[in-house]
């Protein structure tokens, strides 16, 4: 758990200790079990992240280990965040302290939800992820530095190239990852789009 400020403005990189969470196809039900979705705010979710996995591992879950307290980079494997669209999952990770995720691949909705919160999800090959995971586990007290443009990570003198979708890269580095205002700027285009869709006026004649 962290009291670090939430992301704002342009995000060029993330620096922090890394925590490794191994496994393919880790779904959002595991990241935040559904019973914790009974809430009308996201505020309490940080303590509940991976609740059932952590309970099962009785203090040995990576997020519970002493050396990972205060970590801010999560290193995962393939198809992380699949399943339910619940934004509660990245919200819980954010409130635990995660500010960037590196993995082999991400489920799309999870990736988009992270982007909307200013959490970059960066990709690398299976081989590179294995190397980062091994390096991070060997040096849990060292800080990993992530750059978004060009996308890469560095830990104790080792460097790895990462991949970040170009639109996500532009949105994060320009500070325009929080889209609402930008979308509203196109008032005329929104009206024009609605006007060319016949279902908007119930397929009225003419």
């Amino acid at each position, binding site marked *: 758990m962290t009291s670090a400020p939430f992301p704002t403005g342009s995000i060029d990189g993330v620096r922090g200790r890394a925590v490794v969470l191994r*496994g*393919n*196809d880790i*779904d959002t*039900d*595991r990241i935040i*079990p*559904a*019973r914790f*979705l*009974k809430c*009308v*705010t996201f505020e309490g979710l940080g303590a509940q992240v991976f609740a*059932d996995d952590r*309970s*099962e591992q009785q203090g040995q879950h990576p997020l519970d280990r002493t050396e990972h307290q205060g970590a801010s980079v999560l290193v995962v494997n*393939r*198809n992380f965040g*699949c*399943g*339910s*669209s*619940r*934004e*509660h999952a990245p919200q819980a990770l954010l409130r635990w302290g995660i500010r960037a995720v590196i993995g082999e*691949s991400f*489920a*799309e*909705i999870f990736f988009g*939800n992270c982007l*909307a*919160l200013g959490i970059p999800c960066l990709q690398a090959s*299976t081989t590179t992820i294995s190397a980062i995971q091994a390096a991070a586990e060997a040096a849990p007290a060292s800080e990993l530095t992530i750059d978004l443009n060009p996308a890469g990570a560095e830990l104790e003198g080792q460097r790895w190239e990462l991949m970040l*979708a*170009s*639109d*996500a890269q*532009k*949105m994060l580095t*320009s500070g*325009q990852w929080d*889209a*609402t205002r*930008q*979308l*509203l700027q*196109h008032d005329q*285009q*929104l009206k*024009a*789009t*609605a006007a*060319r*869709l*016949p*279902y*908007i006026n119930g*397929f*009225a*004649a003419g």
Partner: protein
Amino acid sequence: MPFGEGATALSSATLYDKVWALHQVAELPSGSTQLFIGLHLIHEVTSPQAFAALKDLGLSVRHPERTVATVDHIVPTTSQARPFADPLAEEMLTTLERNCQENGISMNALGSGRQGIVHVMAPELGLTQPGMTVVCGDSHTSTHGAFGAIAFGIGTSQVRDVLASQSLTMNKLKVRRLWVEGRLRPGVYAKDLVLHIIRTLGVKGGVGHAYEFAGPAIEALSMEERMTICNMAIEGGARCGYVNPDATTFAYLKGRPYAPAGDAWERAVQWWQSLASGADAVFDDEVRFDAAAIAPTVTWGITPGQGIGVDEAVPTLEQTPEEDRPLAQEAYRYMDLQPGQQIAGVPVDVCFIGSCTNGRLSDLRAAAEVAVGRQVADGIKAFVVPGSEQVAAAAEAEGLDAVFKAAGFEWREPGCSMCLAMNPDRLEGRQISASSSNRNFKGRQGSASGRTLLMSPAMVAAAAVAGEVTDVRTILPA
């Protein structure tokens, strides 16, 4: 040329291409597209924080008339009297009611005759129509693609964006055509087909893609069956899946409360027909299946991709691709199943028929056909949860509730129920369920050690009467 013009003239365009082009508002500096949203469905779980954020920004709902609400995830299925026994559930519903009232949004409330699981409710009211873009803060929004809509799940920040602007930021997906030849054999259902597809292509196979389901086997499916297929596109990693609109689609829509009527109906059908993928449509890739070769399919593991035919055995490590072996080992342990063990004959504790995947009238009919004249096996808890108030009323009108009750099933009120653990319906301890829902993730059905076997509603009914996983084809009349 403005966005979208001319797109419908191209016979090489897919439905996805055409609908995308028509809904493009602008290109954003990041290179992403601002996409107009035709129908926004909301429910109590993923909307409260979005409304709160909207208020913080001092913004209002741009198109309340294109936003429709219902309550589904948290409702109890035994008694739906207010206030709910669970104060958190009550607070969520009260918050949704207040947000709808303050913003002029139509709410299909409990007892209105129109409440239901959001992906059952919208189609049956005729809200979902071909050519629309449909979003909801729920991954199973892909269901609505059955109508030839481009429909996908979004997170709460995007719910906020759509409330504020009736649009969101999106990137265009690739389109993969899944061509299904032949016909499903008796005792094999749409659920089996989609479980088979996910088993074949994997749970991440569809990432970055929309799935177009096409071919003779798909054309032969009813709208409810098409909804089952599209519902689970997301379980294969595809954020949206769709079927081209055809006579089956139009026949389903005609006369529904929100469907166009009179002269408008003819104009609507003409427009809808123009949106179907052209004869020369170009797909990014294509995968072919033979419907006749598919058996009733059951998941044995902890992802929807870990499925096998009911006549097969749990795959051994040697039969599993190397990269999938750690997950297989985790699944053997969690499910307490042995590699090489036949899935038929695995005893079950709980049998659940319902959910946005399989909680529609035809699903209940298929299960009732198995249940009629039989009895739920001793010690099995079996229950049926209609997907909506309309489904419940229709099922009761034809006596399906009586069939189920006579067989020892409980007949419940509509809601998401035991698909996910947000209401009182949940597994306890290590219980193992035969479930017509969509996810067999660890802990999904409400117990951190609870186990789920996904299958068709008829297969769930067969498991209920046999007390163990059973090939429904041995029960149904030949």
